[in-house]
């Protein structure tokens, strides 16, 4: 499904979207993007006004909340509102946007609020149009899977399947070749190779569960080869639209516990200077998701419990690693059965 089909479907949900930001330029540009996509948008400049809207019971409201960049007070106020929303409207759906550089804002948000949707954008720019409209559309439609909507029309897509851990090195090499041909610099190529390695390992060792939901290989040393069943293929997709490169790895188990995902990434950041950051016991190191988030600019996780889990990583194809690192981080976690 393309991004425009998804957006068209989501408009039928007739949900109003409130864009909350004390900063006029951010608010107006974000609201314009959403109006241009066909949504009815409320612009809310003031956090107290937003509180009134929420307390008045506008339950069928999707909120886009600007948590700012470097102003700690504004940041804290916005996150207080996010917590209030979660408290008084548990079914409300919230997208946080921020202009803070690198992973800093995301790390701070993670420490204070378990966000599922966080979109970073550059100071002076508006929120990235495709990411904002897609996030809104996916929340409203529940159509959450697929790499293609994140890439422009005519994107080149390559797909592979695997069931054997012994095939992983070949696929990692394929990912690196794809990134190289897309024009990525050597450091980014290497990072994408690492990202695919971690995602494939996760799909082969952590994702498989038995009929009772017990993990089949999670405690296995990763040097022990595994082979999945005939109908348990892991799918790897690579896409490039001339500017943005994407990688998606999906498994047919849908066993990822979404409530653990944000906590797991947050833990790796919080324990960065502590002895227990890395699991030295049985199973994996507990770093795979953290690594993946570090080597992409936008991480999307889609889960249909018991049926499918998909990890998508997106990044701008550039040769400069510094330019890549300066890009704001974005994160989405879509759970087909849970409130966003």
């Amino acid at each position, binding site marked *: 499904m393309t991004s425009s089909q998804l957006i068209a479907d989501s408009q039928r949900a007739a949900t109003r979207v409130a864009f909350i930001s004390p900063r006029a330029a951010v608010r107006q540009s974000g609201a314009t993007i959403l109006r241009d996509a066909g949504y009815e948008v409320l612009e809310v400049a003031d956090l107290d006004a937003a509180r009134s809207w929420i307390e008045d019971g506008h339950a069928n409201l999707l909120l886009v909340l600007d948590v700012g960049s470097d102003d700690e007070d504004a940041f804290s106020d916005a996150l207080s509102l996010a917590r209030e929303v979660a408290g008084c409207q548990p079914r409300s759906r919230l997208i946080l946007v921020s202009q803070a550089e690198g992973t800093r804002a995301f790390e701070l948000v993670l420490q204070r609020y378990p966000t599922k949707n966080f979109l970073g954008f550059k100071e002076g720019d508006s929120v990235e149009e495709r990411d904002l409209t897609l996030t809104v559309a996916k929340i409203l439609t529940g159509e959450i899977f697929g790499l293609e909507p994140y890439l422009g029309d005519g994107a080149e897509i390559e797909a592979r399947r695997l069931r054997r851990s012994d095939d992983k090195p070949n696929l990692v090499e394929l990912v690196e070749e794809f990134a190289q041909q897309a024009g990525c610099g050597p450091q980014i190529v290497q990072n994408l190779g690492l990202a695919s390695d*971690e995602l494939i390992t996760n799909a082969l060792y952590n994702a498989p569960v038995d009929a009772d939901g017990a993990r089949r290989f999670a405690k296995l040393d990763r040097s022990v080869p595994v082979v999945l069943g005939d109908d348990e293929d892991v799918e790897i997709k690579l896409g490039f639209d001339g500017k943005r490169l994407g990688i998606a790895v999906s498994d047919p188990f849908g066993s990822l516990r979404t409530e653990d995902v944000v906590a797991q990434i947050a833990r790796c950041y919080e324990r960065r200077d502590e*002895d227990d950051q890395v699991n030295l016991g049985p199973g994996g190191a507990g770093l*795979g998701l953290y690594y993946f988030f570090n080597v992409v600019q936008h991480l999307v996780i889609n889960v249909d419990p018991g049926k499918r889990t998909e990890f998508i990583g997106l990044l701008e194809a550039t*040769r400069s690693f510094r330019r890549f690192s300066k890009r704001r981080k974005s994160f989405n976690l879509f759970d087909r059965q849970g409130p966003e």
Partner: protein
Amino acid sequence: MRVFRGDAAEGPKVVYIAGNLDEKASFAQLRSEIAGDAEVVLDLGNLERMNSAGVRNWISFARDIPNDMRVVLVRCPVFFVRQISMVSRFLGGTEVGSLYLPFYCEACDDTDEALYDAAGLSVPLDLREVTCACGEPMAFDEIEENYLRFLKRQSASE
């Protein structure tokens, strides 16, 4: 992962590590190569790749280095240096002697790496100019505070 012993007649023993630091990397040979030495230099210049399973194996190795042994890492590749800033206790009982810094040329979009002694580095970086093959100056292609985060830890533990 492949381990080779250097043939230096003088100075500390040099051991070369090459290939992939991953789930298949065994440190048994490396442990036996360095056992009993007071000072060892590990040359990492030919490492090609590392994943989280390799990081875990490396941490187990580095943490078990005896306090009275000095293990100096030289020619640390860029991907290895990044692990140091991302993962706690990555260095364990080792120290960085020299490392590669990445550079980028805005003029021709090319990239390169250059080797530096860790002892001569500090944040903010003050480097001699690195010139691209096209003749234009190249810029350090990382975030200094992130990439060189280990310098603070290393100097604190000295």
